């Protein structure tokens, strides 16, 4: 499982600039395609945005008037180009349901999501490195096996089950330590409400550590069983030095890639965790908007998530590219 880390096509050094240019162009193309896809998808959703705004009491005339006002009767290409033109100038439009600017609606949501991801990674990355090293050096010991089994079990639980267990354990039933519901108070910075981040954060940390540490562990074992490592040892190099100079850099590469992947995925991919804890992140804003047919919000949220995904992928690849130890050439 661990050696199956996502391979990211790394070009040979020296071609870095053209590689970057190509990747940027490709990412831009991907983005344009995504805008088209999401636009088409939203227009294909059953139900009527106007009806969702006016509700069951709506009359046919008021519906028609509202549809015209929202430009829902315009040809699709015109609706699309109008939207894209807005996006290009930084205008994401108005949320038809909340009647505020989409940007104003989604900014706090995005901040909440990013804070949670960054905080959880800040805990889980060092933890995973420590655990990975510790267990790799004692491969096969009882401790190693226990940690491994624990991580397999945690990883195997559906996210919402893990979340429910944490709530029961730490909030409502056994100990009453942290708030079970993480709905943030608006107007207060997220960092002033850290108590509300504990449970969703812990849930993410558990999911991340159990995945990351195994990558680190496998990478360390890989290096430690390599001929090079034995040779270095035979040469009498101090073990600490070997670990620092050779093992760590080699273990860091897959970890960096994995961290990038986790980051890229979590922005739109932690809907379930957000739902369990009522955490106001961008993923749940998106799913709610699909439910209420708030199409401008759906479009903007998908766009934001995709942009972050593509940028973080690009950064990850570039980073992995630049820190890959010489001689390893990025292949593994």
């Amino acid at each position: 499982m661990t050696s199956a880390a996502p391979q990211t096509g790394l070009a040979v050094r020296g071609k870095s600039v053209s590689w970057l240019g190509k990747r940027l162009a490709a990412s831009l193309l991907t983005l344009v395609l995504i805008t088209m896809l999401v636009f088409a998808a939203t227009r294909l959703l059953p139900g009527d945005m106007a009806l969702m705004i006016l509700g069951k009491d709506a009359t046919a005339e008021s519906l028609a008037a509202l549809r015209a006002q929202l430009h829902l009767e315009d040809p699709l290409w015109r609706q699309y180009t109008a939207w894209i033109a807005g996006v290009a100038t930084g205008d994401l439009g108005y949320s038809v349901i909340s009647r505020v600017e989409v940007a104003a609606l989604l900014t706090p949501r995005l901040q909440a999501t990013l804070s949670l991801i960054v905080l959880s990674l800040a805990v889980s990355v060092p933890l995973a490195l420590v655990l990975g090293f510790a267990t790799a050096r004692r491969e096969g010991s009882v401790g190693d096996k226990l940690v491994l089994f624990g991580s397999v079990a945690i990883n195997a639980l559906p996210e919402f089950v893990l979340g429910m267990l944490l709530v029961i354990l730490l909030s409502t039933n056994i100990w009453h330590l942290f708030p079970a519901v993480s709905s943030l108070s608006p107007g207060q910075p997220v960092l002033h409400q850290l108590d509300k981040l504990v449970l969703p954060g812990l849930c993410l940390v558990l999911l991340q550590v159990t995945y990351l540490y195994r990558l680190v562990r496998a990478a360390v074992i890989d290096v430690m069983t390599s001929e090079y490592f034995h040779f270095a040892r035979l040469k009498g190099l101090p073990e600490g030095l070997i670990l620092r100079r050779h093992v760590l850099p080699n273990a860091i590469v897959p970890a960096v890639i994995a961290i990038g992947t986790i980051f890229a995925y979590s922005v739109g991919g932690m809907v379930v965790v957000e739902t369990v804890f009522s955490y106001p992140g961008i993923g749940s804003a998106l799913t709610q908007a699909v439910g209420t047919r708030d199409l401008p919000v759906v479009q903007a949220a998908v766009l934001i998530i995709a942009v972050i995904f593509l940028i973080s992928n690009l950064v990850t690849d570039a980073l992995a590219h630049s820190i890959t130890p010489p001689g390893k050439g990025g292949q593994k």
Partner: protein
Amino acid sequence: MTKDNRLNVTRRTMLLGTAAVLGSAALTGLSTGMARAQDGDVLRLAVTGSNADSLDPHRTQGQLTDIVRFTNLFDGLCEFNPDTSVANVLAESFTPNEDATVWTVKLVSGVKTHAGGDFGADDVIYSVKRILDPANPTKGGSLIGFIDAEKVEKVDDLTIRFTLATPYGPFREIWANRYLRMVTQDFDPAAPVGTGPFKFLSFAPGQESMFERFDDYFRGKAGVAKVQITNISDETASINALRGGQVDMAYKIPFAEARILEAEPGIKLLNNPSGMSLPLYMRTDIAPFNDVRVRQAFRLIADRDMMVRAALAGYGEVGNDMQGRSIAPCGPTEVEQRKQDIEAAKKLLEEAGQSGLSVELATVNGTSGMVECAQVFAEQAKAAGVTVKVNVLEEAAYLANYGEWAFGVDFLNDTYLPLVARSLVPGGSFNNTHWDDAEFNALFAEASASSDEAKRCEIISKMRMIEHERGGNIIWGFANILNAYSDRLQGLETYVVDSAFYHLRKVSFV
């Protein structure tokens, strides 16, 4: 092992760092826990809502968060008592002319607005015209369609004269409806000014709003200094928030969980005997339900006791295919309770040539019990050889074809005549059964025009018998509305139409 020192150090620092992050988070947790005990005068509610939240009492989608907000920020001319009777609030008296076409309303004097001004006739006229604004159709507008917006006149600062397009007998009662709250002139939803027991502090749609006590409230100060309304859409989460002490009151308690909460220390259940029915509606204008025999057969299929026991976990009352759980002040309508009779149902279906009928039942995860009752009915239908396929729809998809489903589940909660106007006569936006019964319609017109209470009750009783005899709804039961609250609170009452959440001024900490 000295070689490992460097690594050990880094490991230790990492562990320390981790511990520091977690520890500081834990400390904030504890410190807010302590802060909680001190500012105990903030009443915190968990209510279900959506991003469509607004502070506008008229242009609202009617989600609970909105209702809870505007019922506490604004007053109506009247309001509901815990039973369905109506009390005056901003209005002091209602005087009709002979044929109930002209009503003169006198306002209570000395009512202050949140902005410090006096509330008067101009504000009422402004509000009524706003509710009836044809450019912005509102829920309230469909309730008072009999008022001619051009003929709402100011007599003096505290007196308004309404001239009606058609006579309307229960004119006073209609003003208790929550969608008919009074705002002040030049109302701005971003900075709402009303006369209610609480005034606006802050609001973030879909998240949270804060109100504070309005010290000059004309009916006396509210029992708590501040109200914080948190939007929690997941019912599990709102129960958890109550259990964990994050909120003091939670609106949405699913039936099946109520028994569990009732047994928990520190938490009390508010069991409102509401008039909410969850009808299974059958379209009376298309096959197979245009045949009254099929409708009666379906009504005979329902084992109502079991539906109440299973779908409502017993928190409700059996229905008899007539709207209205209790008709104040009229009292019950004497009709024999319809019971399950599979043999009779089979016979009726056979006569109608619909044996072995297969239908789809559209439902939606709206209010608790809607999905459940559909499942229970489908199970019961098997005995009569009828296949009912439950189709649980997403809300937008359900709404997209609202009024067109041949067989579906809805929920309704109102007093009898407004409810009939909306759901049992042609033109009503909730008339899912497409029922158009000449005799019933005539009786409704008569009841609406009558300002004589006894006579009105008599007509209502006839109307309900017609419903029972040939209507399009299976009204198998009435669901209680369940709220839960911390036992540190007092002053919460159960309501039939309203809710303790709409009367927060009465709530205080023990």
